[in-house]
């Protein structure tokens, strides 16, 4: 499944970068290069070969772990992209953590107090959460918490290994901005799943047996209601990776999203290809793990 996904993504990426009006040879030698020099470079780079041949030669290198050389920096793309991916994953990891800590309790409270004030407050918060795109919340957050309050640094990235406290301080705003939409979405999903489960016959049976509400919730309802959350969170990783692009751009975090924006703006074809491929691979792997985890936790599902 992952292999097929990567195959399709590589085809799409290759197709898009082929149609892009950018000539790799012109980019490397500059606008003033002689036609002879351009032809010679095209020949050494294999750019004069038929497109399918170029695709297979590129794909063969990728399979061997060689993602190509950046047209912009002249350095191998792979190491730079994976280093950037590490920083993005750190951001994603904290965001998902914060989201789980907040979204699941909020969803549970809203479901238990369905129709009461707590439920309305949670759904109000979740509507507000999905109302603003990341670049707006990020900009407002910088204005309020960095410019006005001066609590946190506005932009930049400090490796945690270099200065832990400073590094965390630089991560607080980006992490909060990314998790807002996720919290809104996941808390709503948890609420609706739990509301459905609380109306099933086995919950009623358990209550009629004389088990207390708290016990029923912990032992019966939550287990079934929280399982689908795994899938939802995994699917949201796609959204998260998109959000990372914007947030890294605004907070000047040298992650994979920022690398991709730079690559797209510079029409650095090998870097674009590598970046998109790595993002798609991350998403597929996360979803694959989620499927396995789901099957492992839910004995009713057999994975073949």
């Amino acid at each position: 499944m992952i292999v097929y996904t990567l195959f399709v993504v590589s085809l799409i990426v290759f197709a898009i970068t082929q149609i892009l009006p950018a000539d790799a040879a012109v980019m490397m030698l500059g606008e003033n290069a002689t036609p002879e020099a351009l032809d010679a470079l095209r020949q050494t780079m294999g750019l004069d070969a038929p497109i399918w041949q170029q695709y297979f030669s590129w794909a063969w290198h990728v399979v061997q772990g060689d993602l190509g050389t950046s047209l912009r920096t002249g350095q191998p793309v792979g190491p730079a992209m994976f280093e950037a991916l590490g920083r993005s994953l750190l951001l994603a990891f904290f965001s998902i953590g914060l989201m789980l800590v907040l979204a699941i309790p909020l969803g549970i409270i809203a479901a238990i107090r369905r129709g009461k004030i707590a439920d309305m407050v949670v759904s109000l918060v979740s509507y507000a959460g999905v109302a603003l795109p990341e670049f707006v919340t990020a900009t407002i957050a910088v204005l309020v918490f960095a410019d006005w309050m001066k609590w946190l640094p506005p932009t930049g990235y400090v490796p945690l290994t270099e200065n832990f406290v400073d590094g965390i301080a630089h991560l607080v705003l980006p992490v909060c901005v990314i998790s807002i939409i996720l919290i809104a979405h996941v808390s709503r999903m948890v609420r609706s799943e739990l509301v459905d489960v609380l109306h099933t016959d086995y919950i009623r049976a358990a209550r009629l047996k004389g088990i207390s509400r708290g016990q029923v919730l912990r032992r019966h309802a939550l287990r079934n209601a929280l399982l689908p959350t795994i899938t939802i969170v995994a699917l949201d990783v796609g959204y998260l990776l998109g959000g990372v692009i914007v947030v890294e751009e605004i907070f000047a975090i040298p992650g994979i999203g920022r690398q991709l924006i730079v690559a797209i703006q510079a029409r650095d074809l090998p870097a674009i290809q590598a970046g998109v491929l790595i993002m798609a691979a991350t998403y597929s792997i996360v979803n694959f793990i989620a499927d396995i985890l789901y099957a492992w936790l839910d004995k009713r599902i057999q994975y073949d």
Partner: protein
Amino acid sequence: MTDFLKRLLKTPQGAIGIFLVVLVLLVVLFGPLLAPYDPEKLSPLARYKGPSLMYWLGTDQYGRDIFSRLLIGARATVVMAVLATIAGTLIGALIGTASAFLGGRADELIMRTIDAVMSIPSLLFALLVVNLLGSSTVNALVAVAIAFAPGMARITRSVALSVRKQDYVNAAIARGESSGYIIRREMLPNVIAPIIVEMTIRVSFAVMLFATLSFLGLGAQPPAAEWGLMVSEARRYMHLSAGILIWPSVAIAIVAVGFNLLGDGLRDALNPRT
């Protein structure tokens, strides 16, 4: 129809959603007529003004009236988002229905491919397409439509498949109705409802995607009054006047919340069981 409207208005989501969406549509239709100033007229002497009787929402870094710019920018932002969502839905519905109809191997191949396409985040997909076609509003529309199609295909297919299994469809088959009748009278009405709900909610995502593309410099270009672009331009001057940043943000939020609420309201109204 009136019965349906009554049900829609009875839920708080539906009522507020309808109110906000109608408000937005009125602004889209009549905004340019209502705008008190020319949205691109520069007034160097009236920069960074706060809200006043003369400028209701104040002025921006070039002394342009923010209220007028918002009223006129509604068309660029909202109309494009709605069109892109409709286009993406049509493409997706076509693929999804075809996949459900073909079934078997073809269905599996199509769905696996759709899954693969969906592993590219839609924002990244839109960025690539816009970069490919060149940054302009129309290209952004194409990009958002293409980015939405796989998700809609998935939803259409799953809805079509589940409807196909319903007892009332089997009953119609048992009654000896023609396939045309079953598809038209039994399946379509039940397939369309969830798609309309999903489409309504997606308009708010489209608004955000458009605004984000403009923000990254790949959608509408200055001096257009597109809301995302307004936020983007405001970033450099927000220390001088927060209003330049806040008002377009509020406008984006109103549209997003409106369509979200309307979608939820429609879901409840179309599905009386829950």
